[in-house]
């Protein structure tokens, strides 16, 4: 549980505005999905991983006598896929949202995270993946952040684990250990795959640079682990296109965590070595939540983390004027509110209640006209509303 203070809120809105305007520029349309969803949307195989499901907030609703639970939205991609299946099935949909997700976190960490997410549903070609990576990078760059892109494919590890003859539960357990950096897994796998010539460490524990690294992996492993060929081909197209656009990316086989729905190229955005967003291709998800089979990919940026990483903006100075009444009788109060309304109509930010910010202009209303103070120089008396507006404009705008 965490509050967002005014300064933090300003940073958050900067992120949101940069994201929304970039999405509009790239032809995406905004959606919103409910905070409360049916739990079953997230429990089917191929949606959320059991580890993630162990951290959701689910409960019986007031009409949950049948035992069917509801959940505070733990993820936005699955509800977006549901929305698409129910209302837009069969079309190409370019959607974005800014909304919160809820997951249990230990200690004082926030259990509510705000995400700026994009879903591109119905686009089969790899240009969709490339567009999403460029869009995410553009949002972060427009905020003045230096972005690193990491690229992966869940099919890489799946191909190795399947070739090792592991069942679904064993694959899941080993996959998590690999993601947790448990290097002993590599020895276990190498033992199960004696006929794979090259060291699995090159594939599972080393990060490489773009197309060159992918070519090396293909040369080293594709012969002995045929399942690697398809994911390597998909990654090569995306990485190659990005390189040609001067977008360098690092390749990491062990990157995708806790989401079972990724089926193709996956990516992460990092700022100063910290993950601030990620996404990937999820071609099976729409059909899993009741729609027709539809290719799809998407990403989400962690708005709170990005806001915290933003460089401080120089203070814009006082931006609101304060109108005060000379007395507290109804005539004086009405005169103060009337002046404030007239100034707001002229595009100025003007308050009546509350104390004046330090260094901000103040206008006192009395029967003798308007006394303007805090606008540079000595206090001065003005007769007309327009004169007050002009004087404030020079200070506030």
């Amino acid at each position, binding site marked *: 549980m965490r509050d967002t203070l005014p300064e933090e809120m300003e940073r958050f809105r900067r992120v949101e505005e940069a994201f929304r305007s970039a999405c509009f520029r790239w032809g995406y349309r905004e959606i919103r999905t409910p905070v409360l969803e049916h739990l*079953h949307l997230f429990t089917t195989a191929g949606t959320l991983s059991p580890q993630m*499901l162990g951290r959701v907030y689910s409960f019986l609703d007031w009409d949950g006598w049948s035992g069917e639970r509801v959940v505070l939205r733990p993820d936005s991609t699955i509800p977006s896929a549901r929305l698409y299946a129910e209302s837009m099935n069969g079309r190409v949909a370019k959607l974005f949202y800014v909304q919160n997700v809820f997951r249990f976190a230990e200690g004082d960490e926030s259990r509510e995270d705000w995400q700026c997410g994009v879903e591109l549903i119905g686009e089969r070609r790899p240009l969709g993946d490339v567009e999403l990576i460029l869009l995410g990078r553009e949002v972060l760059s427009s905020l003045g952040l230096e972005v690193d892109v990491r690229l992966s494919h869940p099919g890489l590890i799946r191909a190795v684990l399947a070739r090792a003859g592991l069942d679904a539960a064993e694959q899941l357990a080993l996959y998590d250990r690999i993601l947790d950096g448990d290097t002993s897994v590599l020895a276990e796998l190498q033992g199960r795959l004696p006929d794979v010539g090259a060291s699995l460490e090159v594939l599972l524990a080393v990060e490489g640079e773009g197309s060159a690294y992918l070519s090396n992996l293909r040369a080293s492993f594709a012969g002995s682990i045929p399942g690697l060929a398809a994911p390597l081909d998909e990654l090569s197209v995306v990485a190659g296109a990005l390189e040609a656009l001067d977008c360098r990316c690092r390749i990491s086989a062990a990157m995708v965590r806790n989401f079972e729905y990724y089926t193709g190229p996956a990516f992460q955005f990092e700022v100063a070595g910290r993950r601030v967003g990620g996404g990937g291709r999820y071609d099976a998800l729409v059909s899993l939540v009741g729609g027709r089979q539809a290719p799809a990919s998407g990403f989400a940026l962690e708005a709170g983390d990005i806001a915290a990483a933003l460089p401080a903006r120089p203070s814009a100075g006082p931006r609101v004027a304060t109108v005060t009444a000379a007395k507290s009788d109804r005539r004086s109060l009405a005169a103060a509110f009337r002046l404030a309304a007239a100034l707001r109509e002229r595009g100025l930010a003007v308050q009546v209640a509350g104390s004046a910010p330090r260094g901000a202009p103040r206008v006192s209303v009395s029967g003798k006209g308007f006394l303007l103070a805090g606008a540079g120089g000595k206090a001065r008396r003005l007769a007309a509303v327009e004169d007050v507006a002009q004087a404030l404009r020079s200070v506030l705008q």
Partner: protein
Amino acid sequence: VIKLALPAGDLRGPVARVLAAAGLHVEGYGEGSRSYVLSIAGGGGVARVFREKDIPIQIALGNYDIGVCGLAWIEELRARFPGQPVVPLRDLGVGRSALFAAAAGGMDRLVARPGLRIASEFPNVAEAFALGARLPAYRVQAVWGAAEAYPPEDADIAVVAAADEAALAAHGLTPLHRLLDSSAWLIANADSLAARDLAPLLDPLARGARRGGAPGLRLPPPLPTDGRAPATAVRSREALRLALPDGHQQRHIVAALRDAALLPPSGYDEAECVRRPASPLEGLEIKVLRPHDMPQLVATGEIDLAATGRDCLIEHLSRFPSSPVDEVADLQRGQYNLAAVVSEDVPADDLAGALAYWHGQGRRVIRVASEFPGIADSYARGRHLGRYQIIPIAGASEGFVPEDADLLIEGTETGTTLAVNRLKAIDLIFRSTSVLIAGKGRRLSGRRRELYRHVVSALRRAAMRTGAV
């Protein structure tokens, strides 16, 4: 003083023998004393008797340092709250059973069919089981008991404790998956273990116990869907389904049925209780279940008519206000009061006075314990208790106040039990009797409607005679 939580119920005898063998005599425990707080000779400390289900929770809360309960109940807590500070220490080697997922009526293997209904007294384990198997759109029905009687009519799968596969077969169930091998375990609160000297009790108990770590839940691997149609909640049927209660309600309902000339010819009377008694009327199907679980079954349409307590109905409606269940007859039997109960030491005669006293004592959170958590929550909200904590309990509630709760929402007939436990009622919430409940606005036709009218009117007539008397 070391605080020890001991189980009531079936485990009481075997655990008493383990304690005796360890040289610990808990006064009155083996003899079935009605007192809930007992002193321990030999090891020092004090023991409190709980329903087994409540023991891991009390240990996790830190109200008790060590306890004894079945591993299945520990896993029930840990399946939902894995970070709770409960440490299984030793297998005491008694109370052996296993947790199974089981089915009846043609389901002989676990399938991932959408909409499967899972009934269990262990709802958190059942959830973990369904998530592990990745069952699509499953529903877990948390029941107070008799889960083994649910398949195939009222659930597709039951997650139940049983001695072995043969015991399941005796209930007509086929095991689909063995989730856990359970037995009575000595457990401790992690903080107590880290900071307090528990050796006077731990030493003798651990000495004779088996070593080794506690086994965890064995969850099934993810299953592919079998492509079959979703399981449907309510199957079309010819029979009218009537549910009758077991437990303390049974004698009242037997009397009501006898007065209405509706008593089954066998299997349900003062001395006998089988889950599916023979029916006195053609087309009427009878099932005996826990009274707490009946409103849910009526709401989902599995059961057409049920005899239960008004307390159970109001508890259900407190949790699910729009549930389509209605009281159709007051059977005028089994009357008792549901009341707010406090310790005799609280110098107040009403709730306002009690609240003023607790606040004056610096108590910031009012702890409310009840077997009826929905009613307790509704009461606490409606009576503006401020910051409060509802402690759902499985029974043996009189022993909770004053150490482990401030307020009980508790049934009382004559007040004698309250007085024995130094408690007093300060607010009457409602008067409960046995009632007949049915689905609100549900339309029956043909023989089912005929039977429904016959049963309801016969019981109403009998109730009117009872009320007149």
